[in-house]
């Protein structure tokens, strides 16, 4: 042991160890606290940054050359992560849209406390471009029966024509044979709404006819259900008059534009009951 301590390289090593530990402690302070605000840290910072960059670049090059599989795996993993995130994002977007639609329906339902509704989603559509029939995911188990009114916050959709245990088919306002009794909100004149009005192959709206000869119908008038016939509760919004045709035989015809986009309809309310006392 004595020989060891007499060994000059060992003494030099010992001194070097002490000095190096001091140096390490100094650089540690330089990184962590105010003492490091001194000259050393400032001078070392760009060098340190450069060395780090060199290390990353050189190391990355050799990994790319000698271990491409690791990079491929990482690439694959990242790709999967991106796909997963994209799917989550799409799902979130879809959920937000659904939330907005249902909120709109809920607001409508709350604004009409005299009616009882069943909310349903569209699960089927006719291939007919006019979309005269849609299928909803609510049926007799939810209390749905034939001829019940189907509406949205944007207006009347149609009437239930067929009911299954958990589905129902709805004849929409686009159906040629669909007729509902309506009234002009401003004048209270009643008429019959039904049948599509086309011009040059383009559907402009539905026809409003059987209006009294003295009826003062104007463009922009709001059309609501009259309640006659009992199928549709009174006062439901249907659409707006976009054109008036004076037939000259004591009656008026008008074209009513509906706000509902039947091609993109996704959710609807089925009116399963009306409390007349409140209404």
């Amino acid at each position, binding site marked *: 042991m004595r*020989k*060891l301590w007499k*060994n000059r*390289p*060992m003494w*030099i*090593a*010992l001194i*070097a*160890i002490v*000095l*190096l*530990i*001091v*140096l*390490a*402690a100094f*650089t*540690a302070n330089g*990184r*962590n606290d105010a003492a490091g605000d001194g000259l050393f840290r400032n001078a070392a910072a760009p060098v340190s940054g450069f*060395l780090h960059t*060199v*290390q990353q670049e*050189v*190391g*990355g090059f*050799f*990994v790319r050359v000698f*271990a491409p599989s*690791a990079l491929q795996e990482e690439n694959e993993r990242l790709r999967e992560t991106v796909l997963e995130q994209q799917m989550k994002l799409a799902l979130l977007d879809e959920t937000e849209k659904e939330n907005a639609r249902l909120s709109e329906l809920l607001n409508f339902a709350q604004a009409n406390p005299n009616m009882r509704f069943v909310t349903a989603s569209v699960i089927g559509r006719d291939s007919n471009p006019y979309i005269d029939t849609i299928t909803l995911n609510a049926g007799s188990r939810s209390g749905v029966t034939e001829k019940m009114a189907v509406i949205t916050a944007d207006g009347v959709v149609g009437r239930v024509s067929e009911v299954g245990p958990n589905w129902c088919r709805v004849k929409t306002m686009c159906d040629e044979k669909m007729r509902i009794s309506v009234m002009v909100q401003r004048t209270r004149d009643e008429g019959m709404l039904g049948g599509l009005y086309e011009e040059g192959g383009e559907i402009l709206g539905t026809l409003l006819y059987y209006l009294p000869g003295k009826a003062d119908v104007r463009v922009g008038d709001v059309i609501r259900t009259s309640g006659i016939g009992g199928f549709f509760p009174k006062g439901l919004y249907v659409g707006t008059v976009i054109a008036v045709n004076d037939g000259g035989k004591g009656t008026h015809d008008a074209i009513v534009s509906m706000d509902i986009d039947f091609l993109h309809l996704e959710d609807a309310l089925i009116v399963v009951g009306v409390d007349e006392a409140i209404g």
Partner: protein
Amino acid sequence: MKRRLWLIPAALLAVFLDAFILPFLSQNGIRPLFTLSLALAATAVTKVQDGLLIAFFGGLLTDLFCNPYLGLSAAAYLVAVAIMYGFVRKAEKGRALVILFAAVASLAAEALIFIFSLAIGARFDAMRLLKTTLPSLVLESLAVFPLCALFRSREKGNSFFK
């Protein structure tokens, strides 16, 4: 002098591996320090001065490139070389023992790094010690044996590794 010349590229290669390659290839943080293994092998086979020089400059270079505390690795490597030298001096022959000696020396180096880390406020992480430090230490120790064999094929210096 001629002997030290071929040690320089070997040491640079070890630093290169430690600083540039292994950080990217290590699995779960397990990463042997080839510079330390080389310094220990040089101590066992050639002369202690070689081991000290490799430990000092190799450690400093490694610190410069990839360690936050400049000089810590160099100090730890020097401690390991000193301990290895102490063992080698006492044992006359020890081809098989070299791994055990290297393990103890590496442990001392790791202990120094560990104590230093605690002293500057690092959190004691027993799991990390078991999962990364000790496996790395085993690999370092095992790497010493083939390096000794390689050195032995070139050198006739120290009689320990025969």
